[in-house]
């Protein structure tokens, strides 16, 4: 369990990015943190593995206070995938890039080999294994960055804007991978601006604005609540908008994804 209790964080330049934030992430939780730029989302996730230490309040990961343990030991539990893959790729081949963290964490070579192959296969990267990560396209580099974190199978997977630069097919693939991680009992926490992707994933949403958590709940509730979304400058997913506009003719309700929309439209037509 990751517990964030009354955390306030101020950057050295005096900017207060988090104000009295509290949040609990249980094992197996699927959470999307949403909010406009500068809301404090990235600052918050950097607290999960101790990259940033709270100025006030506490962050505990499996009851270890992040102030007392090293980033490296926390990272083994909490894997953060950063937004821009170019900020971490450096190896000569995709294979060694993905193996980097495994070697840092002291896995034996046999395990390293096995895990690298497994994760490359899972993320559709096997054919690039011996290529340079710099020779890949933006979307592929993003997946290499993801692979390099998933490789050590952290208990909590944290993703900062995972869908940037991914086409719809890759997003669907990513969604499947996230579902797979959840089915293995891992917690997935993502920061995202991509309402359509979040609507398809249906996680629990935590809304942030001005360094505070201003609301949250199931995706179906949050993404159909115009008042709450307004406060975070988030626009409703298209399907939710459509269903809302159709609301007067008796359909709608809390529908945010295509599949449920089809279901309720079918009911409408059948019922006349």
């Amino acid at each position, binding site marked *: 369990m990751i517990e964030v209790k009354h955390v306030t964080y101020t950057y050295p330049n005096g900017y207060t990015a988090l104000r009295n934030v509290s949040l609990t992430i249980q094992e197996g939780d699927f959470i999307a943190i949403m909010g406009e730029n500068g809301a404090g989302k990235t600052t918050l996730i950097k607290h999960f593995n101790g990259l940033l230490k709270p100025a006030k309040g506490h962050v505990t990961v499996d009851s270890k206070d992040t102030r007392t343990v090293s980033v490296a030991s926390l*990272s083994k539990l909490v894997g953060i995938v950063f937004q821009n893959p170019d900020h*971490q790729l450096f190896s000569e081949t995709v294979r060694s890039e993905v193996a980097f963290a495994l070697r840092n964490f002291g896995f034996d070579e046999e395990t390293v080999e096995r895990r690298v192959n497994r994760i490359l296969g899972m993320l559709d990267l096997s054919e690039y294994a011996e290529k340079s990560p710099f020779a890949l396209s933006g979307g592929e580099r993003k997946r290499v960055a993801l692979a390099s974190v998933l490789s050590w199978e952290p208990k909590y997977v944290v993703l900062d804007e995972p869908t940037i630069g991914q086409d719809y097919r890759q997003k669907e693939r990513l969604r499947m991978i996230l579902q797979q991680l959840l089915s293995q009992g891992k917690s997935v926490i993502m920061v995202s601006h991509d309402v359509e992707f979040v609507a398809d994933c249906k996680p629990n949403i935590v809304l942030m604005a001005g360094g505070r958590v201003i609301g949250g709940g199931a995706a179906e509730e949050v993404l159909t609540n115009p008042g709450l979304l307004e406060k975070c400058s988030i626009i409703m997913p298209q399907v939710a908008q459509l269903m809302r506009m159709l609301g007067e003719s008796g359909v709608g309700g809390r529908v945010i994804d295509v599949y449920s929309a089809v279901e309720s439209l079918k009911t409408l037509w059948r019922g006349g």
Partner: protein
Amino acid sequence: MSMRVFEGFKFTKLNTPIHNMDPRAKFTVVMGIFILALVFTELLPLLILFAVQIPLTASSKTLKRWLGSLKGAAYLAALIFGMNFITGASLTFAFSMTLRFLCLISSFSLFFMTTSPDDLGLALEELKVPYPLTFTFTTAVRLVPTIAADAQTVIDAQKSRGLELEKGNLLKRVRNHIPILIPLIVTAIRRSMEMAEALESRGFGASSKREPMITLKMKPSDYLTILLTSVLTALGVYAKLYLPLPLLEIPYHMPKIPFLNP
């Protein structure tokens, strides 16, 4: 590795006499300090030179960040002090050399904290420096904070992958920085290529003669600053060459180490 050092070289817009000074006048002051710091090896003049900068910095309301850049330079300063001292220089000389280094750092820190890259560019243009060169220079200055922020993100990303920078012996520690340096260089190159394309699409270099929208104008106080600085610098150089300087000696000498001082 903290990126806070760069804060001490970053421009912030403030309304103080130092900020409002013409960049050319300010640069004269920095060059004056630079020349004098290199001319003198004695402790007393270097102390004065350093002390002069404190009220200047205070009046530009950047004292805290200036101290930050000095703190950032502390490792190198300690190295300079140590190297001088163990290789047999007197304590006074080791102090002087450290102070000389700090004088240089602090004067440049003051200059960059109080001069906007735009003003700097204008000043260079007025000095008839070719525009592509001016542009390169101002862009480099402007990108320092951005690259510092990038560096912090890279460090965070690699630490999150279990990299421990402070682990292992000296060689290992140096090697630990490879995963930091490569992404940083690659991002910088990517950024500069993107920037070049964006510039060319916006017609950079289309006409060789540029008409500046804002021109710098020297105020009487700026002329006075230049005059005063030039006179003081000349006096300093004269004093060094022809006048007996009052000595300020710290009476301690490192015992000679035979293999270091053959």
